[in-house]
């Protein structure tokens, strides 16, 4: 196998992208009309790519498993999107965003890609405003910003707690314009079940119409995988129920390397689980850490009393509370990066200071912010002798205007009023930094097959900073792929339409139908969820927030065993020629059961702690993550050779020329 070539352009970091754009092929408009592009996924990455490529003149086919592109999981993103606009004049810059992202990712990302991301970030905001995205504004009519974890500037643009929704609806509207003009053909309720590779190049996909169950062949000159992340391998996560790894995994099995599968983000502020019935977990946006203070009782007996309902959190005096993030990390306080905040919560709960029935929860308290805002607002309104009650009222209104929908969401789920009593939160699986390996052009190791958005591995290293996924999805789709794809498609203008009656399409379709029939034929005893939950439990217990060699080795064996039982004992009702949600789930879980094993292997191989990957064998005396740059400063890119246990590890060495490698410190 060839050495992984990242195709990073030469030259100084701030000139690479411009130079690269000058150097690559451009396809003339008349020829673009002869070229078909398939986009799998209509989240921020897919929708923006589909719209832009169609505007440029390519013939686009877009696919999503939901009933409308607008429902892609990106819709659920809450807090915001970063951009190095420096509107607040707080000394932000392209370099600072680049630096923060590389450092936040614990020096495990590719410098050139991250720099480009920072470089195009400002343009995203211009673009979205032109599209009519209603970002939050200040009274003067200019755009407002907030801060997110791991940075010292205010560069996050937002639309209340619905930023992802507004950005996705923006991209969806751009898609709609192209659909209306016939330049995008949209396939809703369709699931891509394989990629077809002809003479070494991606030439199309096999998809299933989820309503009729019909298996379809679609040919194209390039295939873009924008299918999102695979956090649902843990069963419980903040992802949408249907989020899955299937598209990414199928291309992996056809030759695309899978990079850093073990890099998972466990988000510190999620609603704790309440019982066995739980089907998913709900995020409380990180933006809440702008105003919320995180604490647990300082004394174990108080924690105990709270757990048994004898004491209320509001009864505890200041000195009896342990604001452990402010204590341990005075310079970043409640705004440390996610991985650090999550581990700190786990540490306190493991030590017996957790606050809900399960002992797995900490407080996120808005009391101080309500009082502070109340005082400010009273002054602004010219009320000088405001009563305490009036101040609370005013303060609560300010908090409501910032986070209203999040507070409402919390109240609906937990049945407690977070304006009056602190929220309870606990870490949950949220995002996967790992994904399909791509080069600087976002091309996978299959020529003509690209991966964008959360589905690829490229920009966030071992930990993603808040508000950077939306930025990356839109950067990839609006501003990167429209250029880089030309470099490949420039050679395809004479290819002509891709026939779908080739032996390769026959074979791929046969495999897909074979798997569906096999699944339906098992007729065992247990539902798909039964196996998915078991997989999730192994992943959470042994491949979760803290990992060690023993646990990982056990996980690998246990996952193999669950996979075996799944293929012997799963029960899927109905047939393949109708709407059959159980059959859809089964295919996804089958892939999770393979990915899970590779995930654990990758975690075992990486005997260092970095970002969200914490190996107990590699920590400082104070329990902070300890990186090992000498041995692990590489991207682990896995090649499939028949089954996960036989995957071959390839290493892309990471070079840091523009940022000095340092142990991260948020103290």
């Amino acid at each position, binding site marked *: 196998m060839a050495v992984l070539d990242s195709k990073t352009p030469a030259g100084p970091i701030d000139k690479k992208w411009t130079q690269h754009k000058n150097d690559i092929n451009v396809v003339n408009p008349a020829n673009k009309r002869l070229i078909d592009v398939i986009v799998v996924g209509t989240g921020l990455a897919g929708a*923006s790519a589909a719209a*832009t490529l169609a*505007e440029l003149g390519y013939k686009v086919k877009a696919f999503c498993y*939901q*009933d*409308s592109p*607008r*429902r892609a999981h990106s*819709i*659920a993103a809450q807090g915001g999107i970063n951009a190095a*606009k420096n509107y607040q004049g707080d000394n932000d810059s392209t370099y600072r965003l680049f630096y923060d992202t590389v450092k936040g990712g614990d020096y495990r990302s590719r410098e050139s890609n991250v720099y480009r991301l920072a470089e*195009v970030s400002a343009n*995203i*905001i*211009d*673009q979205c*405003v*032109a*599209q*009519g995205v*209603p*970002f*939050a*504004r200040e*009274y003067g*009519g*200019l*755009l407002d910003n907030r801060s997110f974890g791991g940075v010292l500037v205010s560069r996050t643009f937002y639309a*209340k707690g*619905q930023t992802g*929704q*507004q950005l996705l609806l923006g991209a*969806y*509207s*751009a898609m*709609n*314009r192209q*659909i209306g003009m016939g330049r995008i053909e949209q396939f*809703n309720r369709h699931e891509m079940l394989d990629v077809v590779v002809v003479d070494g190049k991606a030439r199309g996909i096999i998809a299933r119409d989820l*309503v009729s169950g019909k298996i379809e062949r679609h040919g194209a000159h390039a295939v873009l995988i924008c299918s999102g992340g695979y956090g649902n391998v843990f069963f419980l996560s903040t992802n*949408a*129920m249907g989020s899955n790894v299937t598209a990414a995994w199928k291309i992996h099995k056809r030759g695309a390397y899978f990079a850093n599968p073990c890099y998972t983000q466990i988000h510190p502020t999620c609603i704790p689980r*309440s*019982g066995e*019935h739980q*089907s*998913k977990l709900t995020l409380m946006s990180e933006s809440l850490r702008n105003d919320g203070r995180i604490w647990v009782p300082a004394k174990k007996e108080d924690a105990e009393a709270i757990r048994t309902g004898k004491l209320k959190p509001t009864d505890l005096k200041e000195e009896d509370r342990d604001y452990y993030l402010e204590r341990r990390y005075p310079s970043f306080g409640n705004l440390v990066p996610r991985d650090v905040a999550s581990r700190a919560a786990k540490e306190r709960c493991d030590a017996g200071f957790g606050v809900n029935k399960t002992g797995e929860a900490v407080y996120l308290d808005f009391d101080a912010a309500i009082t502070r805002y109340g005082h400010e607002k009273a002054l602004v309104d010219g009320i000088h002798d405001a009563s305490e009650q009036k101040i609370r009222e005013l303060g609560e209104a300010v908090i409501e205007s910032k986070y209203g929908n999040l507070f*409402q*969401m919390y109240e*609906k789920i937990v*049945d407690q009023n977070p304006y009056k009593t602190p929220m309870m939160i606990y870490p949950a699986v949220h995002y996967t930094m790992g994904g399909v390996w791509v080069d600087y052009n976002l091309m996978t190791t299959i020529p003509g097959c690209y991966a964008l958005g959360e589905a690829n591995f490229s920009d966030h290293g071992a930990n993603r900073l808040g508000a950077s996924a939306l930025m990356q999805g839109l950067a990839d789709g609006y501003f990167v792929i429209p250029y880089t794809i030309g470099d490949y498609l420039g050679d395809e203008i004479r290819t002509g339409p891709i026939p779908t009656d080739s032996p390769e399409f026959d074979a791929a379709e046969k495999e897909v139908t074979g798997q569906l029939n096999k699944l339906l034929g098992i007729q065992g005893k247990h*539902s798909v*969820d*039964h196996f998915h939950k078991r997989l999730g439990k192994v992943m959470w217990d042994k491949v979760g927030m803290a990992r060690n060699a023993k646990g990982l080795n056990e996980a690998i064996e246990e996952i193999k065993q669950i996979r075996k039982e799944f293929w012997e004992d799963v*029960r899927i*009702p*109905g047939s393949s020629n*109708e*709407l059959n949600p*159980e059959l859809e789930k089964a295919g996804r879980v089958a892939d999770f059961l393979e990915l899970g094993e590779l995930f654990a292997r990758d975690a075992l191989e990486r005997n260092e702690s970095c970002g969200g990957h914490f190996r107990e064998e590699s920590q400082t005396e104070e329990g902070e993550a300890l990186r090992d740059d000498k041995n692990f400063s590489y991207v682990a890119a896995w090649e499939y050779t028949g089954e996960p246990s036989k995957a071959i590890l390839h290493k892309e060495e990471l070079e840091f020329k523009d940022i000095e490698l340092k142990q991260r410190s948020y103290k």
Partner: protein
Amino acid sequence: MDLNLKVWRQKNATEKGALKDYAIKEVSPDSSFLEMLDLLNDQLIESGEDPVAFDHDCREGICGSCSLYVNGEAHGPSRAITTCQLHMRSFKDGDTIYIEPFRAKAFPVIKDLVVDRSSFDRIQQAGGFISVNTSGNTQDANALPIPKADADKAFDAATCIGCGACVATCKNASAMLFVSAKVSQFSLLPQGKVEAKSRALNMVHQMDLEGFGNCTNTGACEVECPKGISLENIARLNREFLGATITEG
């Protein structure tokens, strides 16, 4: 808690459907309505029956997938939430719960509780956008200050999740609230004003083609809308629409 469910079962778009009874036991009051259906489905699968199909994805009230008519109300008895945000603590032990799909001529049933809402997409395709390319060659975002009040109102309109509860609730099955939300979002912003009139015309035209009914101002939609989209938007749409028909003669 133990419950009696009456669930709409319909094999596919062509076959006739009917309500079917199911008894379900030991539902946690902390579980969500859809988690209660998960439990039912688990039981159905393990006993060899066909599980109930229903649309869902985010399960936090934002994707607009879930679309159940619960005890005669779109998204169930509580206000300002979607079905997936409804929790079982809103019901009592021993309750009988009717579960049906969103019904409208323009939302044909696909299976059980799953309906086809692609008519909503086609309305958006007819004009729910600002005609600007995504090339990024636009002016700096702050070159165009927008009064906060306008931006906030545009945002409120833009929070529509396209669930269709307004249609399912309306006795005329009108889609006016949905259409007016998009038209309002854009007509409140300077970027969107340019095409405000043609947008209103095109979207309303498509709405009519899809077979949605006329709005007779009953206001039922506003009550059931999980996102609090207000009737003000319909008034705004009417203004744009009338303005447009007058100018176009």
